[in-house]
């Protein structure tokens, strides 16, 4: 795998900033006036109780939801909403809370699909599957194989992902996101429903991705142990509002956060 390219932002500077974003569905306020930033090269955790608006936040970041107010600055460009296509082009990849793999396709095809944006041969060459189309296909297969090796999923390469166990599906999904060679990787509960061993494996992958490829990662996670171990900075949401932001230790000792988790009356 190659390190992400095309980014002029140095490590440690702000890669993505969310400013005063609000989002509501009908009368339900999912996110209320939230601002935070993600710096290049860090692992940023977004935590909070159920229904705090974490997934909605990710959906705003990669353009699936349109916020009613606020703006998003990504790689120096400010806009009031992202479009899914722009987000993907700009280098934001994503995994989902309930695995959103292409169930009818093999693990290999799923990962190859992640390389779609980087493949360019049009219908003409595809029809003949020869010449440039085949060269391109093999070149990207090589990249896909690197990811397969990295995630240790060689044995399930040609199996339809719909038939894989949950833990492996999550891994393939991470592979598909990595295949996009993203600058920013959004992970929505990458370890939900996993046993201890699987969680350890997944944590290792997340750290490796971050350290070896310098990919910036934003993750939502409920397992506090994992969050505290992995992340550089943590933002805490509750009822759609930001209640804390800082290093894992600061957040851990924050009174509001403890109240939110233990359920003190508001």
């Amino acid at each position, binding site marked *: 795998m190659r390190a992400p390219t095309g980014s002029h932002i140095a490590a440690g500077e702000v890669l993505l900033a969310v400013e005063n974003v609000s989002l509501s569905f009908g009368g339900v306020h999912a996110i209320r006036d939230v601002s935070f930033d993600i710096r290049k090269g860090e692992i940023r955790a977004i935590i909070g109780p159920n229904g705090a608006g974490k997934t909605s936040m990710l959906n705003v970041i990669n*353009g699936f939801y349109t916020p009613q107010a606020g703006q998003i600055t990504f790689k120096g460009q400010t806009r009031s909403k992202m479009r899914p*296509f722009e987000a993907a082009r700009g280098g934001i990849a994503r995994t989902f809370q309930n695995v959103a793999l292409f169930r009818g396709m093999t693990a290999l095809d799923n990962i190859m*699909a992640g390389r779609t944006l980087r493949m360019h041969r049009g219908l003409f060459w595809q*029809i003949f599957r020869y010449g440039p189309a085949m060269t391109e296909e093999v070149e990207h297969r090589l990249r896909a194989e690197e990811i397969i090796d990295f995630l240790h999923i060689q044995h399930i390469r040609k199996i339809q992902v719909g038939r894989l166990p949950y833990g492996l599906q999550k891994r393939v999904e991470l592979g598909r996101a990595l295949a996009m060679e993203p600058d920013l990787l959004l992970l929505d509960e990458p370890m939900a429903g996993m046993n201890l061993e699987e969680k350890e494996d997944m944590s290792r992958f997340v750290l490796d991705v971050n350290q070896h490829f310098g990919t910036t990662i934003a993750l939502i996670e409920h397992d506090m142990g994992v969050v505290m171990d992995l992340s550089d900075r943590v933002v805490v949401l509750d009822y759609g509002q930001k209640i804390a932001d800082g290093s894992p230790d600061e957040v851990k000792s924050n009174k509001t956060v403890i109240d939110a988790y233990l359920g003190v009356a508001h």
Partner: protein
Amino acid sequence: MFYREAGQFKTDYASDQAVFPILQDRIGIVVIVLAAYSLVLAQNDFLLNAMMIPFLIFTLAAIGLNLLTGYTGLLSLGTGAFMGVGAYSCYKLTTIFPGVNIIIWIIVSGFFAAFIGVIFGLPSLRIKGFYLAVATLAAQFFLEWCFIRIPWLYNYNVSAAIEVPQRELFGVIVTGPRATAETRYLIVLTIVVVMTWMASNIVHGRIGRMWMAVRDMDIAAELMGIRLLPTKLLAFAVSSFYCGVAGAMLVFLWYGGAESTVFSINQSFFVLFMIIIGGLGSLLGSYLGAALIFMLPIVLRFVPPKFGIPVHAATVEHITFMTVGALIVFFLIVEPHGLARLWQIAKQKLRVWPFPY
């Protein structure tokens, strides 16, 4: 025992990315294609004209629909009309430019169908599932109406039908009443084989993966940078192209003449049933499904009399409808991936036979 891949090592990704990575499969394909061509030698008009030619033409239409419904997940009930667009454009083209090779016009008429397909595919951005099915019904009924009410399309013939003119290719009569079944069969077979090969290339490459991604999880596909509208429209275009060519061949190389009823909603269902029974998202399934649906009435018509049971033509039709309906439900329940999956399972069994463990 003979169906083994042991010992066939792939040394580069190009050979592993091939459509048929296993040697026996490649040999099998070659044998089948050669056998299909050698049917010409049989000199059997019934075999070619009543069975093989229509079977191949419907297979092509089924492949077209399968690209759209099976691979991209967009349900279309307008197949019949798109086939009609191909047939009528081919008729107009060869009327206006009689000197040009008819095969070229058959292929070119596919582009007209593709164009119309794209126009009626535009709503697919905002709607899916049965909403889209209703939208394609609009295409079906509107185009059918055009075939009846625009006399220019059928050259103002009194019969209100396409009457296929005689066309020659290198001195051999290709279309019209005097063309031999052998000639027409060879042309149909060649076109279908080449277009199957192309479809197989497309679905195994980048575009095929984009289609399947849209089918399996359109939201995830979008968030990965696959733009939904162009992807879906491309599927509509390619699919309608295949249907258009099939429609043109249906009239020019089989019927020899046709009126609008040939391209009715029933034709759309006919083709849809082929891919449901054959297997959604499988090219092989298009062949198997077309064979089953097409052969069923023939079998019903000719087999019972052999055992001394007389059947009326009408009864055959009724029983065909019933059987097809029951088969649809049966396959959706028991094996949603159709005959193609049954074949795969058989192949897997064969691979490990006689020692399954």
